[in-house]
């Protein structure tokens, strides 16, 4: 009997949970019709390589296809690729495309298109840059096959090509992929399951997609972003409704079919409506972040950052920000909980306000107000800012809560200067699981100093471990590295997690086949 490893058990559990929980999925689905979706944001930027915005990523999944894709159990599966080979030392890779792949302009997808698309993606995406730095040569072999020759080992070749979240390595025609990565592509021509109806696009109002009749789905059952991408509806419209009360009323009245992100204070009302289903599509959800500025006092001192760690109690934050325990959980793992590959509790402390107070004092904190950025128009950043301000006062800090809108916060957090020059000490944000679950993609654990993500922690050991992680082909050793990074993170405190939460979707009962994944996927759905 083959022993079941913990990872296999978790993966299997997640798969089973997905299958069982996916109530709306049925086998006989109706063809045709219009699916009306209220997206979580307005689509203003079309190029999914140019921006990391989630709404543009979701649009990318509609229009473009990927070489590999992550399934619901977080395993990478072939998507446009039919077969691939790797040399025994994993330095030479070849990929052959499956038959029938065609762009929306009627041209076949070629190996040349794939090479050009990977290069453009690799110029923008963090994991892509690491992959490109390891590649010696990447070129087409024939019309359907291309090869990658690595100069040094890279353990995440398939994971990179199947990266599920921003930036996703979508495949575009070579003529579009030749666009400077710092400029937007001028056309939306992909080979994905939907065509973009450019003439009907009204930013701030409506985005229209038409079923791509030429799309050839894979044979496997749909799972996450992998498997068959079957399109049942003729037309799909994103209707942007900025007001949550209006969106809720529109869903109840049957004017829209699916609301991507139901605010948690609206969920109880919709749950009571017998004509609606409130359903969590991203079961792992998001991780809340408290990010200190490592360049400015007091958080340029490790003890002050450790004070934040001992000060924060996830339950306090989650009760305030999310409220309903059905939609949150506390999680000690830096790389998230719930069937994630690097889930671990090593190094996680418990809240100890007395110790936090002591650590802040030892850090040499001089009593100057700590500037907490507070974007009042974003509930998942505003509420934790208020909790942090309250807790900081409890450990003896003076606090300056700077109220602003989200756009101002985004601009201000890029300021590395001192407080007198528009600087900051703490801001809050959150990140979806797909952008947190491995050391390769988790932006907040990086230690590249001024080149790191906003907050700019410096830690050469972590940077070396992350480089080792992406080059390491052995999953067991990758897990060890992830645990080492977690231990360092709980000592150096690049950020503090304020907990894990999910945001449900709501849809009408006639909507069937909604897939569970960390990004919103709108194929396989019938109405």
């Amino acid at each position, binding site marked *: 009997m083959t022993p079941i490893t913990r990872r296999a058990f978790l993966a299997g559990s997640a798969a089973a949970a997905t299958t069982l929980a996916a109530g709306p999925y049925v086998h006989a689905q109706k063809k045709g019709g219009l699916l009306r979706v209220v997206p979580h944001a307005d689509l203003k930027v*079309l190029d999914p390589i140019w921006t990391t915005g989630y709404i543009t990523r979701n649009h990318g999944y509609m229009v473009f296809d990927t070489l590999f894709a992550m399934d619901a159990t977080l395993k990478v599966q072939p998507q446009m690729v039919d077969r691939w080979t790797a040399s025994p030392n994993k330095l030479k890779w070849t990929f052959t495309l499956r038959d029938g792949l065609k762009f929306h302009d009627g041209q076949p997808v070629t190996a040349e298109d794939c090479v050009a698309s990977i290069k453009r993606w690799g110029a923008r995406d*963090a994991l892509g840059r690491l992959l490109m730095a390891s590649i010696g040569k990447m070129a087409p072999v024939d019309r359907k096959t291309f090869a990658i020759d690595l100069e040094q080992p890279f353990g995440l070749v398939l994971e990179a090509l199947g990266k599920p979240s*921003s930036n996703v390595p979508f495949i575009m025609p070579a003529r579009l992929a030749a666009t400077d990565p710092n400029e937007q592509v001028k056309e939306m021509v992909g080979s994905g399951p939907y065509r973009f109806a450019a003439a009907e696009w009204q930013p701030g109002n409506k985005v229209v997609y038409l079923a791509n009749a030429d799309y050839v789905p894979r044979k496997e059952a749909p799972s996450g972003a992998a498997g068959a991408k079957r399109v049942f509806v003729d037309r799909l419209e994103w*209707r942007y409704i900025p007001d949550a009360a*209006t969106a809720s*009323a529109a869903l109840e009245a049957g004017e829209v079919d699916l609301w991507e992100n139901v605010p948690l204070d609206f969920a109880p009302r919709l749950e009571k409506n017998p004509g609606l289903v409130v359903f969590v599509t991203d079961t792992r959800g998001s991780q809340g972040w408290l990010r200190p500025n490592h360049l400015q006092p007091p958080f340029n001192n490790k003890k002050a950052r450790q004070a934040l760690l001992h000060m924060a109690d996830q339950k306090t934050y989650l009760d305030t920000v999310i409220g309903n325990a059905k939609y949150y959980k506390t999680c000690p793992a830096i790389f998230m909980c719930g069937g994630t590959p690097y889930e671990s509790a090593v190094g996680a402390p418990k809240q100890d306000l007395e110790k936090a107070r002591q650590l802040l004092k030892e850090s040499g904190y001089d009593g100057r107000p700590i500037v907490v950025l507070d974007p009042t128009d974003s509930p998942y950043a505003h509420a934790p800012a208020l909790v942090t301000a309250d807790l900081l006062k409890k450990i003896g800090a003076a606090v300056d809560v700077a109220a602003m809108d989200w*756009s101002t916060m985004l601009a201000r957090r890029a300021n590395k200067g001192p407080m007198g020059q528009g600087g900051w000490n703490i801001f809050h944000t959150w*990140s979806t699981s797909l952008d947190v679950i491995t050391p390769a993609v988790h932006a907040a654990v990086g230690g590249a100093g001024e080149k790191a993500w906003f907050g700019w922690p410096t830690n050469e050991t972590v940077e070396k471990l992350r480089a080792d992680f992406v080059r390491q082909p052995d999953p067991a050793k990758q897990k060890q590295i992830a645990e080492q990074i977690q231990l360092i993170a709980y000592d150096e405190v690049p950020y503090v997690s304020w907990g894990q939460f999910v945001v449900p979707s709501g849809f009408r009962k006639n909507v069937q086949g909604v897939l569970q994944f960390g990004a919103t996927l709108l194929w396989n759905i019938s109405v």
Partner: protein
Amino acid sequence: MLPLIARRILATIPVMGVVALTVFGLLHLTPGDPAVIIAGDYATTQDIERIRARLGLDRPLLAQAGLWLASVARGDLGVSIYSGLPVTRLIGQRVGPTAALTALAMLISVTLAVPLGVLAAWRQGSWLDRAIMIFSVSGFSMPVFWLGFLLVWVFAIQAGVLPVQGYQPLEAGPWQFLRHLVLPAVTLSLVYMALIARMTRASVLGVLREDYIRTAFAKGLAPRRVLLAHALKAASLPVVTIIGVGFALLIGGAVVTESVFAIPGLGRLTVDAIVRRDYPVVQGVVLVVSGVYVLLNLVIDVVYVVLDPRIRY
């Protein structure tokens, strides 16, 4: 009349120039950076700098202003920083819904408010006058978003006779067009209905005390004729002023109504663009709306002259 119109149109040019420069200056002094928003959450500082350079936002402010004014002078309002679509196309998509909403709202306001105001003045101190004034005060006091949701709850969710949200152009058929506009137009019109009714009442009351009205009654004219042909015409100047101002305010007031009813109008375009610091779109919309305001003032002045030929400019 024609020299007046020509003079006013010429005077528009420097006004628009000042508006353009003021909006440009204020907008660029506001905190926020579109490059940061475009780059996304995981962009590095270097990515942001590259995008800023691509958008020309790293140039001195005066150079940016000069480039923008030069393109405006050529009739080019630029392109959206985000979508890359021409600002004129974005405005063109949004003019129809806002124009339809404001026109219907004003039609409802004037059609109901002027007779109500005249009636209140005619029956001053009666229960009818009090009822109309209570209605007016309520109209002023009710927040637009609250009234909007109340109407949605009653007519769309409970009764199911009207849609919750959205806009259908006239090409979709007059019935669909009106069905989608009636709730937002009623919501938007209520405050102006109250304003116009109160103004009409006050104005007609003032005129009713004039000697020539007493003379008209003494001549034996029917009360209706005295009221409509003599009193209302003389009382109409302040009412026309308030209607003109109301039109201008409606365009601004439409922002909330457009959000509540998800109508893709100019108000929402402006708010979205401000939130994202989409400078060319905000500048373009403000310029166009300023032009509309100037035009409305011109129309009001012309109507003054028509109503009272003694007026000279």
